């Protein structure tokens, strides 16, 4: 894989509430190669979500610089796909219409949305089919289970073919079976399209299962304390999770994060 850097975070700090306020992240350095699936793990409240907002340009860093695609981030990036623990689908739109939302907002799709609607609709249906939601296109989100809503949310994050996908604990609220199903769904889509992905999670098995690189964040104020390259072959499957290599990696990560938690004030 070409290790062309797509996201470059250099010595970034973020204060909330002015200079005297909380320090969310401090001296954070991290880079993500183009097409790479990167996981960021760390104790809760370590500023993982702040990291997401910083990269997306939703909050400006107090110090340091962030570059995405070689361009410094100055304001909200216009074409990022995002999904959160809460699926945040719009209850008045059907699943299909929910998927179309980004196309009604993102340039250049929005100006031609009406004309291209049939084509978009076909794309959305294909995407839903790939995540196993065929037959639920016309249902409303509140008629779907939590796992289905999260699948739809993932589709919404990908419908406009973003160059950067950001996931903030997307599977944290799901039961273990559904969660592992969705790991495979995400992995399959990522392997097909190779969109650069940053996955924020506190689930170490999830991080090892999905990521090429796992970064461990320290307790607040967050910075990257160590990074691991995960060399397990793809596609990884439920059997992979029982390999000695896999469990060793999870163990190592657990030791690291335990140390970080112990160091937390």
């Amino acid at each position, binding site marked *: 894989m070409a290790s062309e850097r797509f996201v470059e975070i250099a010595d970034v700090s973020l204060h909330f509430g002015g200079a005297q306020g909380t320090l969310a992240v401090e001296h954070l350095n991290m880079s993500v190669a183009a097409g790479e699936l990167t996981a960021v793990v760390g104790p809760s409240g370590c500023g993982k979500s702040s990291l997401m907002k910083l990269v997306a340009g939703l909050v400006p860093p107090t110090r340091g610089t962030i570059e995405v695609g070689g361009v410094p981030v100055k304001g909200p990036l216009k074409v990022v796909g*995002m999904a*959160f623990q*809460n699926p*945040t689908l719009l*209850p*008045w739109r059907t699943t299909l219409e929910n998927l179309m939302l980004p196309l009604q*907002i993102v340039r250049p799709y929005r100006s031609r949305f009406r004309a291209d609607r049939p084509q978009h609709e076909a794309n959305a249906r294909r995407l839903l089919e790939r995540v196993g939601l065929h037959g639920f296109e016309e249902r409303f989100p509140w008629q779907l*289970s939590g796992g289905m809503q999260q699948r739809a949310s993932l589709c919404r994050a990908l419908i406009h073919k973003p160059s950067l996908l950001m996931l903030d604990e997307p599977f944290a609220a799901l039961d273990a079976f559904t969660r592992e199903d969705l790991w495979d769904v995400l992995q399959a889509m990522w392997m097909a399209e190779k969109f650069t992905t940053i996955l924020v999670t506190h689930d170490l098995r999830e991080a090892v299962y999905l990521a090429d690189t796992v970064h461990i964040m320290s307790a607040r104020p967050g910075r990257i304390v160590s990074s691991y390259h995960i060399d397990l072959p793809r596609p990884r499957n439920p059997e992979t999770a029982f390999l000695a290599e896999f469990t060793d990696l999870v163990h190592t990560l657990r030791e690291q994060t335990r140390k970080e938690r112990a160091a937390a004030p």
Partner: protein
Amino acid sequence: MTSNKWLGRAMPYLTVLAMLLVWELTCVLFAIPSFVLPRPTVVAVSLYQNFNTIWFHAERTLLTTLLGFGLAVGVGLILGIVVGSSQLVYQGLYPVLVGFNSIPKVALVPLMVVWFGIGSVPAVLTAFMLSFFPIAVNIATGIATLEPELQDVLRSLGASRLDIISKVGLPRSLPYFFASLKIAITLAFVGSVISETLASDRGIGTLVEQASANFKIPLVFAGLVVVATLGIAMYAIFAYLEKRMTHWATRTVEFGIGG
């Protein structure tokens, strides 16, 4: 189940009937003279005999109420959007709105007569002033309580503030909006009738005022019954619209999928 459903449908009528019955019997039992409290049957007779007069006035009341209400929807919507989408405007304007809403509008009617003369204009404005507040507050609440994560999703797609309001803020406020319409329409009736009572030549308020001055108490009640009926009719219209447009907000789990 079905008998329960039918009973539910019939309940409003049964309740009204029961109340009328108690009223009628009380009047008969205690021999209350009809210039103090007329029996419902006497009110009904008065309503029937004076229907043309009452309708002549009711027409005007309906018109002024709807005009004032329409104005309130327009102003309330705009005000609600502005107040709900900006923290600064919210902080600045909210106390002013609450203060204004605390002023008894009866006190403003004479002022409006000075400005606009006796007639329908004060009635329209009183209906408006009384009914815009719940609309504005509800729209503002609907927009201000937008999930921050959803805003992040939209902003990271390059959505402008206007996009966020039109695509998410307003649709999301619709249930609040309709709830407020049902309150506002009844308040609008209160406003126009108050104003007509004080300063108008036509309208249910005027009719009631003149009738009570002439001790035609049954006619007073007949006029009030008409206002109440109009209020219920308007309420029903908005309740129907609400059901049509915001069915997603009153979810049924009937066809939910578990698991």
